[in-house]
């Protein structure tokens, strides 16, 4: 943590941390405190007076079927995004790890969706699935599927999951590939001499050995699906149709900036903060565990 040899205390270290601390206090801690404070307030319909109501906003939220729906929807969305993008990435990494020549070329071709902004990813996918022009509805029509994510809630959900998972494949692929490449070759060779074929080796050795990475990616993907997919949803469905793609982050934005329900939005923010704290703690527990290896 601290160097064995260090500089003595003076005013200098305070000056050094000052910029970071000022930005943190002004733009992080103060707004977070505000959110917590506001979550205890209810404003009347005309915004003329506010009342301190303790946990009423939270009670209202948890009594609100829309909010609960959004909560479960978010869980489903996160699980689907994580599962889809991690399994594609795992398969690709598994094959890329086998290849001696050209592995870097594949890596180059696979990683760049990471650089595409979520809202752009949304734009790309909404264009491909545009009901009148898009290439996929055209082919789906041949198969007898009538695609219109503007009307069909399940199709809308599927589309945002595709777009969100697509963008995250790159990240998962990189971490899986790195994890596989860090397995000592001698171990895999020993398994081969014991008579285990490639599939068996993957199942019995590679997959268990990279399980810490899987766990780590699970948390990272959950955080990503929870918080970084706002742009995708905003571009593709704007939460619709009929709230079928309104996940929690989207709802905070919608209720706060569009619906101007300050107390309710603040209460939602507080719940989200609570969720991030849990995920961060889980992630750090993982880091600690990894250190012990």
């Amino acid at each position, binding site marked *: 943590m601290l*160097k064995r*040899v260090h500089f003595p205390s003076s005013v*200098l270290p305070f000056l050094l*941390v000052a*910029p*970071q601390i000022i*930005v*943190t*206090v002004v*733009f*992080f*801690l*103060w*707004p*977070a405190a*505000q959110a917590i404070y*506001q979550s205890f307030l209810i404003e009347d319909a005309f915004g003329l007076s506010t009342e301190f109501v303790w946990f009423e906003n939270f009670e209202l939220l948890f009594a609100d079927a829309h909010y609960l729906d959004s909560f479960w929807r978010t869980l489903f969305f996160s699980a689907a995004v994580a599962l889809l993008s991690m399994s*594609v990435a795992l398969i690709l990494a598994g*094959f890329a790890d*086998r*290849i001696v020549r050209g592995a870097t070329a*594949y890596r180059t*071709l*696979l*990683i760049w969706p*990471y650089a*595409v*902004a*979520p*809202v*752009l990813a949304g*734009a*790309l996918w*909404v*264009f*491909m699935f545009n009901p009148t022009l*898009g*290439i996929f509805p*055209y082919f789906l029509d041949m198969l007898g599927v009538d695609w219109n994510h503007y009307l069909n809630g399940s199709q809308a959900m599927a589309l945002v999951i595709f777009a969100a998972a*697509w963008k995250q*494949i790159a990240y998962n692929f*990189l971490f899986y590939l*790195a994890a596989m490449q860090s397995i000592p*070759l001698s171990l895999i060779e020993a398994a081969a001499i014991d008579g285990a074929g*490639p599939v068996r*080796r993957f199942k019995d050795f590679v997959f268990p050995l990279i399980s810490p990475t899987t766990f*780590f990616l699970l948390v990272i993907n959950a955080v990503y699906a929870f918080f970084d997919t706002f*742009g995708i949803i*905003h571009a593709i469905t704007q939460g619709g149709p009929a709230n079928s793609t309104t996940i929690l*982050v989207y709802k*905070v*934005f919608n209720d*706060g*900036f569009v619906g101007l329900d300050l107390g309710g939005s*603040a209460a939602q*923010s507080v719940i*989200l*903060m609570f969720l*991030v*704290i849990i995920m961060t703690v889980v992630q750090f527990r993982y880091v600690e565990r990894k250190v012990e290896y």
Partner: protein
Amino acid sequence: MVENRPLLTFISHLVLILGVVIVALPIWITFVAATHDAVRMTQAPIPLLPGAHFWQNFKDTLFGSGLSSSAGAPVWRMLLNSLVMALLIASGKIVISLLSAFAIVYFKFPFRMGFFWMIFITLMLPVEVRILPTFEVVANLGMLNSYWGLSVPLIASATATFMFRQVFLTIPDEMLESARIDGAGPMRFFWDILIPLSRTNIAALFVILFIFGWNQYLWPLLITTDSDMTTIVMSIKEMLEVAEQSPQWHIVMMTALLAMIPPVFVVIGMQKLFVQGLTETDK
């Protein structure tokens, strides 16, 4: 490879090529759409092979007013805004994180751990969960519609601070001892020894943070109302809405292409640094 199985190698390549196709398809379709004229882009099915209007669309998009029916800023202006924002965020995060990591690792001072935890907490407060109050703070400070408003609220960074802390901890103690015997004070040591020794880490982090900054969406959306401050990434959403009314997909997709070229170029051009940055910041 452990054993030589030509069939398996063949399948491996096949699967990977399939993966590349899936990953690349959306971009390919975007690129193709950006090479056709407006008329062709209203006919289903849309083309899968490039057309001849790439340069025309490129010029129209970059120097024209973007979409004919939107009164937005010219696209080059948005690109400039994005560039300034991304550079400010990336360099701001790096500078303040380097300084605070230096203080935390190399100085013993009161409240050291308190500051450390304060920085740590920012990890738990993504902008999405505190948008309204943060917006109010920025509005009260008069930072709406400015580059400062776009960048400063995003530059506190626990991950960058942690990464530099990690990097500094791996630098041998003897470097500092030797520098002290040579008569270097703290800031001299920071400039002459620490910064040069962390060069590649700084570069790797810069790549990641540039992409992070460039791709910001929700925050710029909230605090810019002046079309002169619009960023390219933000503009896409607006264009999509317009495109629903009067389809001009060739311009929308060209804009999307322009919006993703800088960060994609950074990732591919600096792949090694990018991979290093990604794996280091998340550990």
